[in-house]
Structures are given as C-alpha cells and as structure tokens.
C-alpha cells in the first residue's frame, strides 16, 4: 500500500465507518475507499467486478468507471466526504472517483406535509437536492431554465442551487443575488440563515424567501420572473423575492373557473384583514368608543360584558395569547395527543371561560373568527406573521379606540410597503422583466 492511501487512512482514523477494501482485479490489487454508511459496499463491489470483467487493464477500468481520474489528494478527501467511492490502483499512482451505488437515506417523493392543495398534483419536494431539481426539470422542459449551483458554508459545504428562467428574470436581480450568494461566509443551517444574506431585515417578521413544497407553485414563480433556491436536505423550494401575492393567491386556485378563484382570493384578503383588526376592533368598540353603535347594539354589547371583572383589553389579550399558545402546542405534540389538546382547549375556551364569566360571549366569537381567518392565508409563515402583526394594533386600539385601530392598520400597511428585497418591493403582484409592477 502506498503513501497516499496511508495518508488518507490516517486522516480518517477516527471514522469507524470508513473503509479501505483491497480487491483483486485482473490479478492486480486495487483499493476501494469510502464510507460504509454512505456507500452500499456489497453492491458497489459487484459493480466494479462486473465492469472489470469487460476490460483488460486497470487503467481502462478506471476510465470506464469514472470521469474523474487521477485527482489531487485533497479532492479525494472531499469526494469521500461527499459519499463517493474512490478507487486507487495498487501502487497508489492512479485513482478514480466513482459514483457508487448509494445507501438509500432519503424518503421517496411523498405528499406535501405543510400544505394541502386541492385539485392539484400531489407530489412534494423531498430532501435530496437533485431529486428536487429533477422534479422541476421534468415539469419545465425548457432550454431557458438556468441552474447555478453553489457550495456555501464554513464547517460543511452545503449545496445551494439557484434556478431562474433566462430572459424572464431581470438580469440585474440575478447578478445581485449571485454576488450575495458568493459572499456567504457562515454556515447555512436554516432558511432564515439564507434569508439574512439578502440584506438587513433582522427584526422583520417578513422573510425575503417564500417556502413552498409544491413543484407547480415553484414553477409558477419561475415563470413569473422570480428566482427559486434549493438547499440540500431542505424539502422546500425557496422563492425569492417573497411578495404579498404569495399570501393571497396560489397557482392551484386557477384550476377552478376564474370567478371562483377570484372569490377564493377575496376570502383570503378578508381573512388577513380580519386577523389584523378584529380583536383590536372589539377592544375599541367595547371599551373606548361604544357610542358609535346604535343604542340597541350598544346595549347588546354592554349586556354581554355584564359582570366580567377583566377590562376589555386584558380579556382580549389573554384570549389571543391563549389561542396562539394552543396553535403552537398542537404543532409540538405527537399526532396521537394533539386532538386531546384541541378538545380540552375548545371546551375551556368555548364553555368554561364564558360560564365562569371571565370573558364575554362576544369575545369568544371574535377570537374564533380570528383563528379561522388567520388560517385562510397561504403558507404557515404568512399566517404566523399576520398573527404577530395584530398585537401592535390591539395595543394601539386599547389606548386610542377606533382611531388606534385605524392608525395601527395604516402603520402596518406602510410598514409592509416599506419592505424591499434587492429593491423589489414586497407589495407588488408581479415582477416585470425590468422593474416592478404594482
């Protein structure tokens, strides 16, 4: 065994799943190197022997097996880490990096877990970046679909792919994003780590990236002049830039007749709007500006709050926080326990709190409406940030009444309007090939 093989062996001495196997091919020995955990050794051996049977020399075998022959030792190490099989000749002078028969570590293409589309194809993106890219290529067979791949990170080099349609996505945007991706120094562990690379939005609840599980949605975004990223081991297509339209319209809507899809989108707008202002409006109308109602309505509202010790603001904020806690708890719990929380939560919120006269009937109705409304928007992250933005409006409403609701809502609108990613504003519905179109 020659120096270079020894060197590699010493480098991987702490890795128990590392193997160096000696094999005899054409009466000369070769060494197979790789990870047992990543390479299916038995099948790979068989494959090498089958290939060897039809070749005459080791050199010919190497050429047939691989496109990467006689690489430097650093690249050998990198190839091993990436899960490739490396073959050395007996004297260690020749080597080849072979795509092995891999251990199957991935789940196969499955149905989406975070979205439930109706009237649509049910494939969702998986863990493997190449599978995901393949899913896009298969559905969008166009020569203009461009793919740039990057390896980013400090500790581990993580694969990152950028897809765009040439001639549609603005060139300036592509160059800017390309520059930003090449600047990445730190590890990209989560979607938010990638999000941070697109400029300062540290305290913003709205991400630069819209994550979707559905290939058709990703392809639709590509066709709408946007960029799609794929991270290795991340079962989402990350659409850049994230626009407000992602919250309100999905490509699946258009499987219905036009008028129905418009209706669906209007419902989502109402949902977002109601989530933002309903709790605040309740507080404002009950505690600060009851005089705007007609007398009978005002009396009805006052009656429903009769004997309730908490102030309107306190009861509302308590209920809103409680509901958000329940939503979070359901996510955390195993599937078998989740329904229990739903039931207990429903009973407590619906019956017990009202009967104990802690909160008013009317508030329970309002809160229920808000929970339902906040789930009407597309995408969990959008639903979450809409739920977050209702708190400032609620606080303003408790101080200034209807005026507070109004100012709070306008402030929210202005805030959303001020967001941009790489000079593309968040509040646009389309990106033109040069600039933006509202």
């Amino acid at each position: 065994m020659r120096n270079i093989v020894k060197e590699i062996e010493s480098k991987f001495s702490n890795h128990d799943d590392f193997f160096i196997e000696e094999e005899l091919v054409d009466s000369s020995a070769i060494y197979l190197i790789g990870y047992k955990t990543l390479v299916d050794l038995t099948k790979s051996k068989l494959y090498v022997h089958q290939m060897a049977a039809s070749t005459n020399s080791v050199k010919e075998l190497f050429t047939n097996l691989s496109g990467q022959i006689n690489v430097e030792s650093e690249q050998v190490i990198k190839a091993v880490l990436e899960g490739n099989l490396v073959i050395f000749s007996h004297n260690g002078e020749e080597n080849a990096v072979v795509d092995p028969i891999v251990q199957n570590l991935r789940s196969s293409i499955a149905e989406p877990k975070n979205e439930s589309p109706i009237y649509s194809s049910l494939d969702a993106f998986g863990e493997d970046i190449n599978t995901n890219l393949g899913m896009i290529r298969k559905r969008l067979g166009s020569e203009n679909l461009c793919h740039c791949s990057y390896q980013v990170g400090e500790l581990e080099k993580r694969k990152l792919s950028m897809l765009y349609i040439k001639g549609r996505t603005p060139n300036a945007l592509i160059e800017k994003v390309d520059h930003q991706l090449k600047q990445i120094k730190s590890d990209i562990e989560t979607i938010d780590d990638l999000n941070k690379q697109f400029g300062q939005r540290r305290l913003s609840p709205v991400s630069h990236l819209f994550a979707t599980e559905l290939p058709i949605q990703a392809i639709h975004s590509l066709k709408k002049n946007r960029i799609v990223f794929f991270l290795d081991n991340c079962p989402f297509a990350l659409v850049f830039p994230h626009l407000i339209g992602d919250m309100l319209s999905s490509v699946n809507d258009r499987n219905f007749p036009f008028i129905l899809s418009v209706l669906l989108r209007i419902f989502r707008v109402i949902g977002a709007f109601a989530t933002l202002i309903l709790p605040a409006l309740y507080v404002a109308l009950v505690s600060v500006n009851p005089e705007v109602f007609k007398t009978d309505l005002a009396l009805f509202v006052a009656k429903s709050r009769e004997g309730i010790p908490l102030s309107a603001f306190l009861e509302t904020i308590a209920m809103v926080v409680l509901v958000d806690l329940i939503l979070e708890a359901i996510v955390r719990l195993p599937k078998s326990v989740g329904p229990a929380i739903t039931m207990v939560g429903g009973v407590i919120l619906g019956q017990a709190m009202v009967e104990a006269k802690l909160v008013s009937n009317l508030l329970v109705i309002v809160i229920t409406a808000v929970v339902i409304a906040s789930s009407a928007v597309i995408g969990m992250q959008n639903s979450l940030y809409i739920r977050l933005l209702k708190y400032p409006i609620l606080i303003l409403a408790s101080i200034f009444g209807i005026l507070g609701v109004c100012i709070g809502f306008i402030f929210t609108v202005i805030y959303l309007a001020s967001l941009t990613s790489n000079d593309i504003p968040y509040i646009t519905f389309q990106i033109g090939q040069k600039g933006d179109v509202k």
Partner: protein
Amino acid sequence: MTNRIQIGVIFIIINLSFGYLVYPNLIYTLAKTAHWEVVLCQAFLQLLLIWIYFKGLSFFPEKDVIDIYLKMGRWFTFIFLTPLIINLVTLFALNIRLHTEVIISIFLPRTPYWSIMILLFFISIYTAVKGLGTILRSSVIIFLIVIPLVLLNIFTSVVNFDVHNVTPSWSLPHKFLFNIKFLYLIGFSSFLFLGFISSNTKLKLRHLLVPWVSVTLFFLTVVYIPLFIFGQEAVVTLNNPFLEAMDSIDISWFSFNRQAIFFGVSLVGLVILTNAVLLWMIGQIIQKMLKRQKEELSYWMMAISMIAVILSIFIPSKSLIEKYFLWSTNVQAFFMFVIPITIFIYGFLAKRGVFGYEK
C-alpha cells in the same frame, strides 16, 4: 404605467386631505350662490398651472424642479426654495394640528391633542424617511380603503338633501374672479410635488386628467353637501361644515350611530400620507440644495419635523390654527404660481439658447 397610477392616486389623496377642512369655508365666503362656478374656475386654473408646470419640466428631461433651479444658479435656488422649505414646514405642522383637532372632536373628545398629534407625526416621519417608493405603494392601499369610505359618506348624505337650499344655482356676476381670495384657493390644490418626482417617471398631462376630474368632482361634493343640507345662511356660521353635515346624517338600517367616524377614519389615512409627502419634499430640497448624503437625510427630516412638532404644539387655539393654516396655504398658492411660471420661462429661454444651454 403603474407609477402613473400611483402618482394619480397620491395626487387625489393630497387634494382630498387639503380639501376636506378649510376649503368649503373659503368658497362660502367667496360666493353666495352658484358655488360651482368658483370651484370649476379654480379647477381650470389648476389645470392651466399644471400644464405650464409640465410644459416647463418637459424642457428638462430626467430633471426635477430642484435640479432645474440648481441649473439656474445657486442663488436662485436659495431665493426660491428656502422660503418654500419654511412654508412647507409650517404647512406640515399646521396641517397635522388642524386635522388632529378634527379627529379628536370625532373620536376622543377628552384625550389631550398632543398625544394623537405625536402619533400622527411619528407615522408621517417614518413614512417619509422610508422614501418615495413606500409613500407611493402605501398610498394605493390606503386609497383603496379610504375611497369607499368617502363615497359612503357622500352617498349616504343624500338622505338629508333639500334642493331648495342651493337655489338659485345660476348667477353671473363674476366678482369672485377679481377677489384675491380666489387666487388663494389654488393653495389647496397641491400639485407642486409632481415636479419633484418627474425625474424618474415620464408623466404626461393626460395621465393626470382622470385624477383631476375626480378631484374636481370631489371638491364640488365637499362644497355642495353642506349646502344641500344646511343652506348658505347656516353654512357660513359653521366651523367645519362638512363634519357637521356628516354628523347630521342618520340612517336607520345602519348599525353605526355616526357617519362622522368614517369621515374621521378617512381623514387619518389622508393626513398621514399628505404629511409624508410634504416632509419628503422638504427632505428632497435639503438633500439636493446642500448636497447631503442620502443616509444623512433621515436625520435632517427628523430635525425638521421636530421643529414642526414644537411649532404646532405651541399654537394655543383652534381658531388661530385655521387662520395660520389659511395664511400658509396662501403662501403655498404664491409658490404654485411662481414655480411653474419660472420653470416654464427658464425652459423656454434655455431652449432658445439664451443661456447657451445644451442638451
């Protein structure tokens, strides 16, 4: 295309914001009958000035008003634009204070005015600091929320109309044309900002026709709704005729007691955006005149708005505010004549090659 819609929208918003409060009072003092003649004359005068303005600006493609003044010479810029800044700051301060008084009287009669004023100031400053793009984008959404409310107000007020209140509607002594107050009316139609954004859009006069028509219609309704409801004799004695008119409406099937709250809600949206535009204009002038960095601009705007806050807090009474507000719109009217005309003349002469100006 879209930018034009946004600019049209913000043009309507600014006119609405100025038109709601003091404008009807001024019209009532100008004419006893046939108010529509005054409004229409004012509208056509406005259109004429906008035309001159655009014509002047079209001599200088890719340039805004400040660039053109800087081209005329530094001293010109200082002489014309420093008073404009001072006027804009006072207008900014008085506009917010005036609106705050009305908003308080609608929503929260017992709350001290400064708390709401500072809130409005804060949001206006925030919007202005975020820049023109933010103003334009948010204006479209706020427009979509505010305009239905305005229309609701206008259409629900029909129930109280009494046609006899506005007769006779024809009268032809055009004395008002020679009244200096007629020229002051122009101060309420804010179009100066159009020249500040012309550098990055190709705005033409015809794109503004639809906004102009809707603004004129709106001015007519603002003047005529109180007239229809109260009549000329009663209207001149009222402080805020439009607000009183809204308060007088009572629709039995509607679950809200007061129409005025919708009026108030629309006022909030309008005043925030209008003030953001004013502040943005101030910032633009300062930045270009003193050649400051864009990053520094937000500090300048904050400093200027602090002055405005102090100014508006220290005005003691509501009647004084209205008086000062009228004065500052009068000054505004002066600029609305001077700036388009100087730019037009300069552009005309420059095109003739009088100053050796080359394209």
